[in-house]
């Protein structure tokens, strides 16, 4: 830890000047576009519009990572999920929690300012899966975030003062927001959560300066919209299709790629047939919200297989146009699509256990159902429970992968669990009540007791390169470095570095709570830093019945590491 022998008075003046000069050098959209080539800062959720979560900073290597030490820790003063990614803009770190937005001096770890989010007392009943805010967007001195009660807010980077606030939806209808907004095509784009509450999903485009809503796009088809006939009458209006994770953007094609989540209720036979566009990816024009193409990963979504996992953009020559998007889907298959036109290039099973489909048909892109799934699709009221793998948690959940464009490998955290469900007919209850249309009887672990794994995947050869089996799945994002390191965290609190070559664990540090945040790498004055939030996620521990996590306390904080000197 650096000693800091400066008088308090001089330190304060220095901080004020630092903040002033930071605001003076406002960033542009071009800066956002170049985020991956300016690795010293972190201007976007995902470390770039492609969300590769890769850094070219190479001072920390497999050879010296053993010397990585903590340089500071900052308490976030909450017991909620720290499932979030900070930004570094003009030398200042910005962090979103569910209850606050804060600015931190990233070298000293001292908080610069912190402003609260006013939330209604009953909001927690409307959150299916955790109390968190996953991150921020930033442009030209303004931070953008969402709030749990479905507001979109713009705040000044200088002091956190609100610039504008717009209500995206009425939370009492079952809506909420936990994701980071996306700035694309000169527009601020947000999605929505609420797929367990009988809501209808949508995307919004907002004016960056004023917050005026420019467009609104529903994700379920009704009336004359294409795909409306895939719904039973009246079901699309409450059919789910939430858009709860941030999309990616290709500025050359001017296409935003945004995933659409589960159908509501989970009971597919109650809803209809394919029920477009649940379980899909939409490619949209950011300025208008017009859908240019779509691809449905899980037609009808029979098992809560959201299509919302990060749609990572990459260049893979020799594959169609060479411009792809990749997704490790909830349904257990790793998809590679041509992002110019949505054509499926490949879809291979990455999850260890899959019993709902035997594969994805290469010609149609549709799953080849097993008899269990054929039956589930037409049976609204089941006579017995069925055991489904992957479970509703999926073969991979929200925690985002890293793609190393040098090694052309994807690294992500997977889950190996099944679930026992019995389908029942249920009327939409409304209010803070789940509408699933099934009885969730329990989750099933695999015979070898390894409920998860960190996987290295080759998206061209479509196979696992290595995997590290885990008793409990990791629920954290992954970061890779060009020097060949893979950083991620465990639900028991260890922040780890692995060798990208073979998955050998090279370094580990025990933090105070479970790690479920998204690591970032950044640089100041020639020193490389790695920052991660620690603060246990709750959705897995609440339901999965995994005894390993019973002694992990809550308590969020922010950790920054660097090579000791």
């Amino acid at each position, binding site marked *: 830890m650096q000693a800091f022998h400066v008088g308090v008075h001089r330190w304060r003046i220095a901080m004020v000047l630092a903040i002033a000069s930071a605001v003076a050098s406002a960033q542009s959209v071009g800066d956002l576009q170049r985020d991956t080539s300016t690795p010293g800062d972190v201007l976007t959720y995902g470390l770039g519009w492609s969300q590769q979560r890769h850094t070219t900073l190479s001072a920390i290597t497999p050879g010296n990572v053993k010397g990585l030490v903590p340089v500071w820790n900052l308490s976030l003063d909450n017991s909620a999920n720290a499932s979030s990614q900070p930004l570094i803009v003009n030398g200042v770190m910005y962090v979103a929690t569910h209850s606050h937005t804060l600015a931190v001096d990233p070298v000293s770890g001292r908080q610069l300012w912190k402003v609260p989010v006013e939330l209604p*007392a009953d909001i927690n009943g409307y959150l299916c899966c955790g109390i968190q805010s996953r991150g921020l967007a930033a442009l030209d001195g303004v931070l953008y975030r969402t709030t749990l009660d479905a507001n979109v807010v713009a705040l000044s980077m200088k002091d956190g003062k609100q610039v504008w606030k717009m209500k995206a939806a009425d939370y009492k209808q079952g809506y909420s927001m936990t994701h980071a907004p996306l700035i694309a095509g000169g527009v601020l784009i947000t999605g929505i959560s609420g797929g367990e509450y009988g809501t209808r999903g949508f995307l919004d485009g907002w004016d960056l300066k004023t917050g005026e809503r420019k467009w609104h796009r529903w994700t379920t088809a009704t009336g004359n919209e294409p795909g409306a006939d895939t719904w039973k009458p009246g079901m699309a209006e409450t059919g789910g299709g939430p858009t709860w994770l941030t999309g990616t953007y290709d500025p050359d094609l001017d296409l935003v790629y945004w995933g659409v989540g589960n159908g509501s209720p989970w009971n597919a036979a109650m809803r209809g047939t394919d029920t477009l566009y649940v379980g899909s990816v939409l490619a949209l024009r950011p300025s208008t919200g017009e859908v240019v193409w779509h691809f449905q990963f899980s037609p009808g979504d029979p098992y809560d297989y959201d299509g919302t996992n990060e749609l990572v953009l990459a260049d893979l020559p020799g594959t169609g146009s060479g411009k792809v998007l990749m997704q490790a889907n909830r349904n257990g298959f790793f998809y590679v699509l041509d992002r110019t036109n949505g054509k499926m290039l490949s879809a291979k099973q990455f999850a260890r256990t899959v019993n709902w489909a035997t594969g994805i048909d290469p010609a149609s892109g549709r799953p080849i159902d097993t008899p269990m799934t054929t039956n589930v699709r037409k049976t609204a009221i089941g006579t017995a429970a069925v055991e489904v793998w992957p479970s509703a948690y999926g073969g991979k959940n929200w925690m985002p992968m890293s793609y190393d464009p040098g090694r052309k490998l994807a690294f992500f955290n997977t889950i190996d669990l099944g679930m026992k469900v019995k389908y029942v007919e249920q009327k939409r*209850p409304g209010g803070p009540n789940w509408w699933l249309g099934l009885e969730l*009887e329990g*989750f099933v672990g695999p015979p070898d007791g390894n409920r998860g794994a960190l996987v290295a995947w080759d998206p061209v050869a479509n196979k696992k390169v290595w995997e590290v089996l885990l008793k409990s799945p990791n629920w954290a994002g992954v970061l890779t470095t060009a020097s060949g390191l893979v950083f991620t965290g465990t639900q028991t609190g260890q922040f780890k570095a692995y060798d990208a070559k073979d998955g050998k664990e090279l370094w580990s540090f025990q933090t105070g709570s479970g790690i479920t945040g998204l690591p970032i790498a950044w640089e100041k004055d020639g020193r490389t830093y790695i920052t991660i939030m620690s603060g246990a996620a*709750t959705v*897995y521990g*609440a*339901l999965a*019945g995994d005894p390993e*996590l019973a002694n992990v306390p809550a308590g969020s904080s922010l950790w920054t590491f660097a090579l000791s000197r």
Partner: protein
Amino acid sequence: MREHARALIRVAALAVVLGPACHVQAQDAPVPATPEAGRKAYTSYCVRCHGINLAVSSSAFFDLRTFPKDDKARFVESVTQGKRAMPAWGGVLKPGELEAIWVYVGSVNGW
């Protein structure tokens, strides 16, 4: 004539308040205080945090397997008013559901 009209208006108003899909009888009848009825209500409101069959392993949520069986007053207060991160369910629970959930918790814990 006026009496009849007034009665009609009252019935119409009631229908508007209750909604077209509602059966008055089902709405009003309290849920029985049985483990099965409690399990159904628990699944609706509580399972997402407190776990299937009370088996929760996130320390963020109170482990109901450890709830003291002679402190029903505490249970009623926590559920109806909310406590820390738990929202208040008082305005959401239907008649009888709170009692049924208490009976269900007891049945799982072997009280």
